[in-house]
């Protein structure tokens, strides 16, 4: 079964090649890999879809964590996360076929983003299942070109936020809040001392 890993890395040159190199060298599978800057521009979020048995997945996590540019690696389990992918499909359509493809796209809430005399370009966003289902339904038509981005993913809710502190430390949300509180207490203590003085 496919598993999704979220990796937060320093935005250094060669970091993507270090990660993908590690996967290919150790024979781990990559179904898809996406990378993009996080809310903090110093860091990049890499989302890798991979597969393997428990032992391999454990090794993937450990070996990735060992890379020096990696700040955080964790699995985004399906029940606790949202996955999204974008696909662009170019379908060959005659004037007669056009209506059918458009209405199919509407059902899937896909957008027509380019219309040409002999083709339509459709943009669809969703989980992989939805995109697969849409592509299945397009089987009656000739798909000229297909571009899929691979999965981007986030954990659900505030509890699963992976927070990057100003100093670059990566913490889970509860740890982040705890750290904030401790800092506040420390500040209060300091202020108290000052007041006494």
């Amino acid at each position, binding site marked *: 079964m496919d598993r999704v890993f979220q990796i937060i890395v320093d935005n250094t*040159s*060669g970091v993507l*090649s270090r990660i993908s*190199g590690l996967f290919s*060298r150790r024979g781990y599978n990559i179904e898809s890999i996406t990378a993009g800057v996080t809310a903090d521009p110093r860091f990049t979020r890499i989302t890798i879809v991979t597969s393997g048995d428990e*032992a391999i997945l454990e090794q993937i996590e*450990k070996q990735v964590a060992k890379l*020096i540019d990696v*700040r955080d690696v964790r699995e985004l389990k399906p029940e606790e996360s949202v996955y999204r992918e974008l696909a662009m499909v170019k379908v060959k359509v005659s004037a007669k076929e056009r209506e059918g493809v458009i209405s199919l796209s509407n059902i899937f809430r896909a957008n027509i983003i380019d219309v040409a005399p002999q083709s339509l370009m459709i943009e669809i966003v969703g989980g992989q299942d939805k995109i697969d289902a849409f592509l299945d339904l397009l089987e009656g038509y000739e798909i000229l070109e297909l571009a899929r981005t691979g999965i981007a993913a986030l954990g659900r809710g505030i509890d699963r936020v992976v927070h990057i502190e100003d100093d670059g*430390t990566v913490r889970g949300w509860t740890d982040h809040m705890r750290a904030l509180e401790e800092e506040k207490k420390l500040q209060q203590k300091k202020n108290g001392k000052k007041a006494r003085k």
Partner: protein
Amino acid sequence: MNGAQSLVKCLEKEGVEKLFGYPGVAIVPFFDALKDSSVEEILIRQEQNAAHAAGGYARTTGKVGVCVATSGPGATNLITGIATAFADSIPLVCITGQVESHLLGNDVFQEADVSGACESFVKYSYIVRDPADIPRIVKEAFYIAGSGRKGPVLIDFPMDIQLAEAGKFSYPKEISMRTYKPTVRGNGKQIKNVCLQLSKAKKPILCVGGGVHLSGAEKEIRQFAERYQLPVVSTMMGIGVMPSDHPLYFGMVGNNGQSYGNRAMNEADLIMMVGARVADRSVSQPGLVMTGKVLIHIDVDPAEIGKITGATTPLVGDIRTIFKEIEKHEITTDTSAFLRKLTEYKTQAKQDKQIASRNNMRKRAPHTIDPAAFIHTLSNAMDKDAIITVDVGQNQMWACANFAVREGLFLTSGGFGSMGYALPAAMGAQIAEKDRQVVALCGDAGFQMTMMELGTIHQYKVPMKVVILQNHTLGLVYQYQKLRCEKRYTMTEMDDSPHFECIAQAYEMEYYHISEESEVNDVLREFLLDDHPAILVCDVDPEEMA
């Protein structure tokens, strides 16, 4: 101050005393800056040996070894040495010259993407882009190389950055790397758990690897084993953790190991793997060996635990720190029955070996010696704390089984198996400690792979000794072809070996030769006596099996 001067200054700050290197135009500013520094440079004869020598230096001193090469071919020549260090977790900082930054990627003269090429066998690599970054990069590089699971770090240093103005020099006192924080202290709960498991075991055994040496925990392990009377076996990289003749030591394990060592592992009910990675040559069938046993795996690298086989009790941290902690706990264990049995196996195996060697003697070609017995005699003739470097091949197998380590070091390329390692590594070790006895043991093939370093030995008057076991074959592969290819020997015979005596003469080294058992003791005494570099060639029957 330019970038090159800044880098040299950083090396001084890191306490680097010696480095091994070879110049080219792209690294000339660095060597130019080195001239005004306290760091002593040793000009080797081929870059691969700079990395091996730096490895031997590092393993002798416990410090990070440094090697330097130029861009392109200089850098690619380094690669085998870097990979060798990576496989055995030896701390190195490797500095390579690089073409000017704005030319990178244009395939200009002597350009190679060395950081790309080395990616899978360095711990980390840097390409210096801004001379202001040099102090931070060097500080990090030494820290990364010498901490956690040690290993080589590469700094690729473009020519223009070497010459660029680096501004005011300030070396960071502290290091803060958010993404790299190796675990040193073991988890307290797990340590208690380890002690509990040990108390429950009836037939516990310690299997020690190179990690023990890297952590400097030899003393702690010996004391631990002695206190609880625990039998100890080792991997190839763990040789020397226990003195070879220690009653609790049961030899090296693995497919080239001692039968009684493997038997001990098989019969144990608890295996404590310490600084060993359950490598294929040590534990060829981990599934079989580990079934029904408790496996305690102690390593500084969490990724090694569970990579090959699942551990019952994983314990991540620095071995020395962990054993200092374990020392505080009380363990109750009675291993006397198990020890008695293992000692019986050992005695029996040693008797069998003597008989076999006597039988072999009759079969042996005239004017050849018994390599196994010779190596044992050599080890006893050497100083107690001497360093032996062992090459790769039959000589390595014989040495692992027969060299008696007392208080010295046994250095070999275990993980990567790089032929030609022994000579440059011995050079590095001898340059690190010029008053200690250092002997390189190699075959005639491995010796010829790096014998150009005799030039370095000659130039710097390195008083090391070289023993060559000469059988005019690539012994281990020859042996493999004998057994697996029905004696169809291809590419393994080297009939017209050079006259090593003439080579010794060319480099003004003493030369000795042994072809009869009766000569061994006398010649060895003389060979080891003074501190003049010397070569000893011993004739070995090519049909001799390792």
